[in-house]
């Protein structure tokens, strides 16, 4: 990826809140990141850290109410997606930004054939007639590695296995040659061998088609295998951001470090217990005026209760939102 290329997606200070009966939940809090053409950006974090909500907010896929995008800017090319109307967003979704979701068993409509569901975006966005769309749909199924593609177009989703359905989802997402593919935990619901196949497929497709990918997961092993850059999210915020090697080699934020320690080791002493991060993820009610990780952090300062740490650079293309400096073991000068 050429350095300094214009980002295809540039998110600045994105804020999303959910209005509930018990007040507002700040699900996404001043999240900023960019995505360069052809790059694979990994987004990690535990359940409820705001990974999916962030990506859904970008493109108006959250149900509103209760969700409300409060502020920020999402530049896609030269267009601010947060200012765009519904029609514009619809023209972008599925055409220039493709989505793959977590559970392939429920993400396809059970009463329509797979062919129909792949042809739908082709006919809408590319203006293809039925015959052209069918030809393209067959190519897409071949591209994602489904054997006997032509005859499988008339099959219904329940006639496919989980891994095959996820391939169909990828075919749908790629139908109109998108610039960006957002994959929201696409392998979480699959078993490990199928997961590996899907990962290989995506790597392969990325090389062939050259789109940028946002890969949301809570599996650090997956991230290590495919990402160029990584964002670590916690409590609706980005707590660390670094190139993949830098993140694994030199983690800065206590949460990232704790996450890396929870990965079970393949080698070494069997007696080593599985590590966990003590405590619960925070409930994001109330304004975010303190560090979201403070309750579970072992390096907590008094300042962490009063201020929400800003993201500060701490290495080449590396930044973190923490007052603690692992190099000195003391406070970071922010």
């Amino acid at each position, binding site marked *: 990826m050429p350095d300094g290329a214009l980002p295809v997606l540039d998110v600045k200070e994105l804020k999303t809140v959910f209005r509930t009966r018990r007040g507002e939940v700040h699900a996404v809090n001043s999240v900023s990141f960019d995505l360069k053409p052809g790059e694979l950006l990994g987004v990690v974090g535990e359940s409820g850290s705001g990974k999916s909500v962030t990506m859904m907010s970008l493109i108006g*896929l959250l149900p509103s109410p209760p969700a409300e995008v409060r502020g920020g800017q999402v530049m896609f090319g030269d267009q601010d997606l947060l200012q765009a109307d519904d029609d514009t967003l*619809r023209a972008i*979704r*599925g055409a220039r930004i493709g989505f793959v979701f977590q559970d392939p068993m429920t*993400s396809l409509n*059970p*009463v329509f054939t797979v062919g129909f569901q792949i042809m739908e*975006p082709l006919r809408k966005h590319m203006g293809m007639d039925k015959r052209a769309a069918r030809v393209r749909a067959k190519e897409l199924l071949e591209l994602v590695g489904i054997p006997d593609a032509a005859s499988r177009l008339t099959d*219904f989703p329940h006639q496919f296995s989980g891994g095959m359905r996820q391939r169909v989802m990828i075919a*749908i997402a790629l139908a109109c040659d998108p610039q960006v593919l957002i994959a929201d935990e696409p392998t979480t619901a699959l078993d490990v061998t199928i997961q590996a196949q899907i990962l290989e497929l995506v790597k392969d497709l990325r090389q062939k088609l050259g789109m940028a990918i946002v890969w949301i997961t809570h599996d650090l092993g997956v991230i290590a295998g495919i990402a160029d850059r990584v964002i670590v999210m916690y409590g609706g915020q980005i707590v660390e951001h670094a190139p993949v090697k830098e993140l694994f080699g030199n983690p800065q934020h206590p949460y990232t470090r704790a996450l890396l320690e929870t990965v079970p080791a393949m080698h070494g002493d069997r007696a080593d217990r599985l590590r966990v991060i003590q405590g619960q993820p925070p409930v994001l009610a109330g304004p975010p005026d303190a560090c979201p990780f403070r309750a579970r952090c072992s390096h907590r300062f008094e300042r962490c209760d009063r201020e929400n740490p800003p993201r500060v650079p701490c290495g080449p293309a590396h930044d973190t939102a923490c007052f603690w400096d692992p190099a000195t073991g003391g406070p970071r000068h922010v």
Partner: protein
Amino acid sequence: MLTFTIRRLLLAIPTLLFISLVIFLLLELAPGDPMAQVPLTVPPEVKERMREALGLGEPVHVRFWKWLVQFFWVEPLHLIDNLFGTALAEGQQRVISWQSRSPVMDIVAQRIPQTLWVVGVAYIVAILIAIPIGVYSAYRQYSWFDQAGTFITMVGFSVPPFFSGVLVIVIFSVNLGWFPSIYDTTHEVNDWDSFVVQLKQMIMPVMVLALQITSQISRFMRASMLDNLGQDYVRTARAKGMTERVVVLLHVLRNSMIPVVTVIALGIPAIFGGAIITEQVFKVNGIGQLLITAIQANDLPMVQTLTFIFAVLIVLFNLIADVLYGILDPRIRYD
């Protein structure tokens, strides 16, 4: 699907035979005397001979067998005779009503159109109203439209037709004088004016029935839509950039209709069964009214035949509902 249908049709035969036996025995056990209406001046031995003339002297199994032969053999032959001008059933005893001494099926054939006009039209009207209401209520859940819809359907669901029927009669016939309060069964439609008269007399019973059926089906539709609106495939359809119209009216509606179509199909036998209370309130000479008078007069052949026809329809439409389910939902395969 075809094998399934044939298998189910074959299975329906013993089911229906059993049902007819149960109906017959129940009516046998029920107290009542077809001679109860005969004046007291008629001597008891004459009454006894009249009973025997009706076949009541025969043992139970003989009478059941005779009814079976008449219903399953003579009546179909008679129908063929009527349709093709043959004489297959000539001289054979048909099922005769004790009350009117005319064949039961002839009376049923007379009454069916009245019932179908009123109850059938109400059913169609109700479906046409209920589905859009259900879809929109679910799509805009908790909106004022949904709240109002919920309130009205609850009222429609809980107010019985003997109340709502009388209420509309008081309002529209007595006070406003717009529509006749009594349905004229003998009215014939042969030009525009008589058609308008027919419409006018239908409006109130149809309204009363449709209110109830609409309430039921729109609730079903709403619940089914809500189930499906939260599904992952809806998000997928939106992520593909489909318009809300396509998402809701194609992706969600197609899935939501599966259980609703079944409910609608299962409700159709009730149309033929007539709406006993509504027919009474508006004096519609339909099947429901026929059944009630037959029960009151101890007209056993009539009650037996009508009840059994309802049973046949229920079995048949259960099968139709199952087949429709298989057609609408590709995940269901019977073979």
